[in-house]
């Protein structure tokens, strides 16, 4: 909503500086998004008349204009093609200032010194028309400051009005708020309409078939002379952000802006049967609206028909083309109505058609000001369109809208706001807003004004009191939270730990958009069933909610690779989504985590860089298991959807698969570098069984180390052999690990050698050589038997 200060002053004598008014509006909740002062940078520019236009002796394009600027005559050089003798123009003499910080100086143009210049609209800061010099009305006083002549000494407040305040989408509503704030008088003049001729009801008829959707309908008729609006009206509309069209249309827009009463002017001669019928449309009924678009209507839409039952307007939203006013219009039917807000909102949403009118109707206009709006329209039509207005307007109000009766308790106000107001302070806060307040309190019976549909409950009035006393004046306190300690839950701490561990391992955290394209799944070989889909996404690549974190993370790898950044270690944590289970409405939504390593791991200078490989993932899994104290998190080689065939493993926790890890197939990525990744169900990971944290005493006896190498089938996982070995130690194995693997022709195809280092230690004594020998033999026997292995030399 753009509100010129001069217009506001029609209703209340605000004298405050523009900054103070803006500050007041902000503190009233009418947020000022911008302040425009169109004439602020204009100084010394005056109105002049061109007396004569002559050729410039030394230039083809420029001409000489002799002008009279009221207090003198002068000749200036002008290059614009549209100047003619008699034209009234804006003259900027030497020393005048123009927008952009320009100060005029005398200028020699091809041998003739020009003392100043004639101005185009652009040069005056009035839009982007620089095709020629601005023509002013011929009766403008010469010598007058153009700021005054053009009313450019105005201030326009660009306000963002919240949806609960339809009343503030009008000049009158804004003026009322400022008057209350500055304790100024406020008055909306009653329109003066001079009526003559046949009564309205003798000329036209109005039938309302859908009173619940149209509780009030006022019709007035008038003869009009079509033409342009006067300058003052065109200027105000322009400042308020509306384009002047014709005097009749401009008047309806003017009243809409001034009083929040949307109006529609029908060309009376084009209304079949000279009448109005308000009814619900029928499914499939058609109407071509003013924007020349044919609309298909439904039984939910309210239409304004003529007396022949032909639709002429989509009620409250947009008029129809058939009965639109035009140059040839001689009589109009002015519609002022109150339409049910929800009905307008639904139709507007369904048709995708929004207008200044629908915007206001769906928020709720003043049902008691409808007739006054029609009167104001007629008053202005008399002034600007020579209207002759018929007496006795038709006012069909089958279903008057009730005002809200609300009790407000002073105690409640103080209790909610943390204030200590006396009852009279509460009353004094409310009365200037037009709220009727009865009694002396402390509890008051009030009646909300008809223009404030947002005032229905006590809390709504509490808010009004808060606005009126000023939020900034409410003393700041802190709530007493002594009953509660702040903190993170164990799960939240664990999630932070997982992120911190991954950061410690060199991975940077990615946050990608969880809406992805199905192709991101199919190229990884992931199934498309059980997905959760967004039905109205504006973007095809944001169609489904990710069922896993990895696809989005791999897209991040590709985006980085496209920038030449191929050596990456990334992770992401976040929700993943699967279709609901067990009849639930909402999806199976849980936390996932994915890690990806791409390109090379930098090892220079001591060693050459190496490509990422699955052992980077093994490190990650081990660190996570260690950080979370998980008793059993293992990688078990097997094919896993999403990873390259034969190059992947399942992550198994407490015997249950909780994720996968492995190489990403080259054809699943644009990046032409090796990529390995893992994806984990974070919820399952955090729910895993934790290791016993009871302290284990440290043995002070010496350790015995032995190495064993076996030749065995290469399909037997090292972890399997390690498990066999651990079982042989009768609790005396402190550590065991693989320290070598090799294959050779001598070992035979499909076989490999695995070498293990075992450290034995007893908690209570030094192990003897015999005991160690026995343990060693037991280890050998176990592996040979269990895995059909042979001990190497």
């Amino acid at each position, binding site marked *: 909503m753009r509100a010129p200060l001069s217009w506001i002053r029609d209703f209340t004598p605000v004298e405050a500086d523009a900054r103070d008014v803006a500050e007041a509006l902000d503190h009233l909740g009418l947020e000022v998004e911008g302040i425009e002062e169109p004439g602020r940078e204009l100084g010394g520019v005056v109105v002049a008349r061109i007396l004569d236009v002559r050729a410039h002796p030394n230039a083809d394009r420029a001409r000489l204009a002799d002008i009279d600027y009221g207090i003198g005559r002068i000749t200036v050089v002008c290059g614009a093609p549209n100047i003619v003798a008699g034209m009234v123009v804006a003259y900027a003499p030497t020393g005048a200032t123009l927008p952009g910080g320009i100060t005029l100086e005398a200028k020699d143009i091809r041998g003739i010194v020009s003392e100043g210049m004639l101005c185009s609209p652009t040069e005056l800061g009035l839009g982007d028309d620089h095709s020629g010099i601005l023509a002013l009305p011929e009766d403008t006083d010469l010598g007058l400051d153009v700021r005054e002549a053009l009313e450019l000494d105005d201030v326009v407040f660009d306000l963002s009005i919240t949806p609960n305040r339809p009343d503030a989408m009008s000049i009158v509503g804004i003026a009322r708020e400022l008057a209350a704030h500055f304790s100024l008088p406020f008055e909306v003049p009653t329109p003066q309409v001079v009526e003559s001729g046949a009564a309205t009801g003798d000329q036209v008829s109005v039938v309302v078939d859908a009173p619940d959707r149209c509780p009030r309908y006022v019709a007035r008729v008038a003869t009009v002379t079509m033409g342009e609006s006067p300058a003052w009206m065109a200027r105000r509309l322009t400042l308020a952000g509306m384009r002047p069209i014709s005097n009749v249309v401009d008047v309806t827009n003017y009243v809409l802006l001034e009083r929040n009463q949307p109006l529609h002017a029908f060309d009376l001669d084009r209304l079949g049967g000279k009448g109005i019928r308000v009814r619900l449309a029928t499914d499939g009924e058609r109407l071509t609206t003013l924007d020349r678009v044919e609309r298909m209507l439904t039984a939910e839409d309210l239409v304004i028909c003529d007396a022949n039952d032909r639709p002429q307007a989509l009620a409250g939203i947009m008029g129809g083309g058939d009965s639109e006013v035009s140059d040839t219009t001689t009589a109009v039917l002015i519609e002022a109505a109150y339409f049910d807000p929800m009905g307008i909102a639904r139709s507007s949403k369904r048709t995708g058609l929004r207008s200044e009118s629908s915007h206001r109707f769906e928020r709720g206009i003043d049902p008691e000001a409808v007739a006054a709006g029609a009167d104001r329209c007629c008053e202005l039509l008399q002034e600007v369109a020579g209207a002759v207005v018929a007496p006795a307007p038709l006012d069909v109000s089958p279903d008057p809208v009730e005002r809200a009766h609300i009790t407000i308790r002073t105690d409640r106000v103080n209790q909610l706001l943390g204030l200590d107001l006396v009852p009279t302070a509460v009353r004094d806060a409310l009365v200037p807003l037009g709220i009727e307040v009865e009694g002396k309190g402390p509890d008051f019976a009030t009646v909300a004004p008809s223009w404030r549909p947002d005032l229905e409950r006590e809390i709504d009035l509490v*808010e009004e009191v808060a606005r009126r006393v000023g939020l900034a004046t409410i003393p700041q306190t802190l709530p007493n939270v002594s009953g509660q300690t702040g903190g993170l839950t164990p799960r939240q701490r664990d999630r932070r730990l997982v992120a911190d561990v991954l950061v410690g391992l060199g991975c940077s955290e990615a946050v990608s*958009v969880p809406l992805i394209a199905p192709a991101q799944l199919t190229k990884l070989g992931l199934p498309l069933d059980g997905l959760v889909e*967004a039905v109205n996404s504006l973007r095809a690549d944001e169609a489904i909610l990710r069922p896993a974190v990895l696809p989005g993370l791999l897209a991040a790898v590709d985006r980085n690779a496209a920038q030449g950044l191929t050596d990456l270690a990334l992770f992401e944590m976040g929700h993943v989504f699967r279709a609901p289970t067990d009849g639930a409405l909402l999806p199976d939504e849980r936390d996932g985590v994915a890690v990806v390593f791409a390109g090379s791991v930098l090892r220079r200078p001591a060693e050459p*860089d190496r490509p990422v490989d699955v052992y980077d993932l093994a490190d990650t899994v081990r660190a996570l298991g260690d950080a979370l104290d998980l008793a059993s998190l293992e990688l078990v080689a097997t094919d896993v959807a999403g990873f390259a065939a034969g190059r992947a493993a399942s992550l198994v926790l407490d015997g249950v698969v909780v994720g996968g890890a492995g190489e990403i197939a080259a054809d699943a990525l644009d990046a032409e570098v090796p990529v390995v990744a893992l994806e984990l169900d974070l919820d399952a990971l955090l729910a895993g069984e934790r290791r016993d944290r009871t302290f284990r005493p440290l043995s002070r006896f010496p350790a015995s180390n032995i190495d064993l190498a076996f030749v065995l089938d290469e399909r037997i996982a090292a972890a399997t052999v390690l498990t066999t070995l651990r079982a042989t130690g009768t609790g005396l194995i402190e550590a065991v690990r693989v320290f070598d693997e090799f294959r050779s022709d001598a070992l035979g195809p499909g076989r490999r050698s695995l070498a293990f280092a075992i450290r034995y230690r007893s908690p209570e004594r030094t192990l003897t050589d015999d005991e160690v020998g026995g343990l060693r033999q037991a280890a050998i026997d176990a592996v040979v038997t269990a895995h059909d292995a042979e001990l190497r030399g």
Partner: protein
Amino acid sequence: MDDAALAAALDLDAARAAIGAAVSIDEIDELRRSLTGKKSLVAAVKVRIKDLPNDRKPVVGAAVKAFTASVTEALDARKTEIERAAAVRRGPALDLTLGTHGRRRGHLHLITQTQRELEDVFVALGYQVAEGPEVEDDWHNFEALNFPPGHPARAMQDTFYVQLGDPEQVVLRTHTSPVQIRVMETQAPPIFSIMPGRVYRNEAPSPRNSSVFHQIEGLAVDRSITFGDLAGTMQAFTTAYFGEGVRSRLLPSYFPFTEPSAEYGVSCPFCAGAGCRVCSHTGWIELGGCGMIDPNVLGNVGIDPEEYSGFAFGFGIERMPMIKYGVQPIKTFFDDDIRFLEQY
């Protein structure tokens, strides 16, 4: 042997100078011989002690002993120095600027870093952290929050709908407020919780808007919570997060789930309110919304609004670093360019 002769024989300064000038083990060995060996001046003095008068014997003896000890100590120290220097020079020249073994730490995403900072501020104020699903039903995202069907305020938030349930029944949450409802549905007052999380808006991407962003909301419900408590909490947060001297400001606004409602802003931390590019020359930066929980909302979750009152607040997480560090456009947060991730 007079004192002058003795002093000449036991000249410690001269001895130390000679030792300090030595640069090889050979020189040290030579000095040890010449200063304390059998043919040294000290040795000569020692031989002559027996000829001295009795009262002079202990004095000269002590001087000789002290001289010998000092010289030996200086020789040993210098020898160690020379040996160390020799050892270092055995390897090639050291250059630690060549690079590293590639062990690097990663970086938490700037959103996570900011979220943790915000969480930590409120945890210190006594709040707990609550979470909820990103796919929500209409009740939690809208209706319980006092957005009845067809309410114009629903149009303030462009909504993604999900193909579950009845048409438009399941949405991607447009704000973190549904978590407030979930907390109040499951927990009795007193409640002091914050709700960080991801939210979705189905709008065309622009430098300032993304279809996905993050919010953090706060909720306090107890007996006799006031608007003054809200204002005080916003100022406490402002000071804790932005530092001393930054002021908070509440201006009346409208949200369906709070009343009275307010916009929360802070005096521009960059220009101290004087006006600069960051604050669009207004001196203030708008950060979010807040207000007293609407009685309808309390009623919707079974909390008696006559007995309890509460406040709620919320703001965008990305907006904080966008202001603090000038990160833009907002898409930068979700492109995951490693150069951005490693910058913070």
